[in-house]
C-alpha cells in the first residue's frame, strides 16, 4: 500500500491527497498538479484511499468521505 500504512494510517503522500480534497471534489489530474505527484501515483493512491473508506469516487472525481474528514480533523489536532 502506497497511501495507507500497515497500521491503517495514511502515508505522507496519502495525507497530501486527502488534504487536496479538503476544498471539494477533485479529478486525479487536478490533485496531481496540486500535490506534485505523477498522475499514475495519484490514480493508484485515490483508489487505495477509496478502498480504505477515506474518499469516495463521484463522476470523474473524488471527494472526502465522512471518515476521511474525521481523520483529517484528528491529524490536525
Amino acid at each position: 500500500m502506497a497511501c495507507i500504512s500497515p497500521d491503517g494510517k495514511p502515508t505522507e503522500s496519502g495525507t497530501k491527497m486527502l488534504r487536496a480534497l479538503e476544498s471539494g471534489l477533485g479529478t486525479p489530474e487536478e490533485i496531481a498538479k496540486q500535490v506534485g505527484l505523477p498522475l499514475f501515483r495519484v490514480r493508484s493512491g485515490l483508489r487505495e484511499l477509496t478502498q480504505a473508506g477515506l474518499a469516495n469516487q463521484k463522476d470523474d472525481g473524488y471527494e472526502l468521505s465522512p471518515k476521511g474528514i474525521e481523520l483529517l480533523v484528528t491529524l490536525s489536532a
Partner: protein
Amino acid sequence: MEEVREQTISLPRLGEPAPAFEAVTTHGVLKLEDFKGSWLIIFSHPADFTPVCTTEFIAFAEIYPELQKRGVELLGLSVDSVSSHIAWVRNVEQKTGVKIPFPIIADLSKEVSLAYGMIHPGQSKTETVRCVFIIDPNQIIRTILYYPLTTGRNMGEILRIVDALQTTDKHAVATPANWRPGDMVVVPPPNTQEMAEERLKQGYECIDWYLCRKKL
C-alpha cells in the same frame, strides 16, 4: 494415450493494445490504466542485486529527467519480491548516490512477465530477459526491444526511439536510419502516380519520387 501438454507463450505485437495488468510495485498497487494519457516504458530485468541490471537501473535513473520532459513514465519489472526491490534500490542509492525514482513491479506470480512475453525459456526459465516495451498514451504498443541477459541496454537508443515516435505522431512523417532530433525526416511515400509527380515539385530533397526528405 499419453496427454501432451504444451504451454503457449503469447507475445504482444506492435500496434496492439498493451496487455492490462494490476501489479504490486515499489510504489503500491498499479494498473496499466493508471498510466493512460502518458507514454510508458515497461522494462524487465533478470534479477535484483545483479551487476548488469544495477548498471542499467542507474542508467535508467539518469535518463529519467529526459523521459519526464517527453511525458514518459518508467516502470521496471522482475520476478523478485517487493522487499528485494526495496533492499536493492536502497543499496544502489547508498553505494552510488543514485536514487531510483520509478516504480518496479514485483512479479513473483509471473503474470505480467508471461502476458508480455518477457520469459524466454531458452535464456532462463525463471528470470525475465531484458525487454523494453514503449507504450503510447492510448496504451498501444509502439516498440518492443529484446536484449539478452548478458547485454545491457543502450539508453541513448531508447530516448532516440521515443523522440522518433513522438515526431512521427506530431508531424505524420517517418524517420530514416540513424535519425536524431534536428535531422531531416522522411516524407511518407505517395500512393498514386499523380501524387508521385506532385511530390517532385514540392521542394523536398528527393533522391527519387519514393524517397523524399524535408526539414521540420
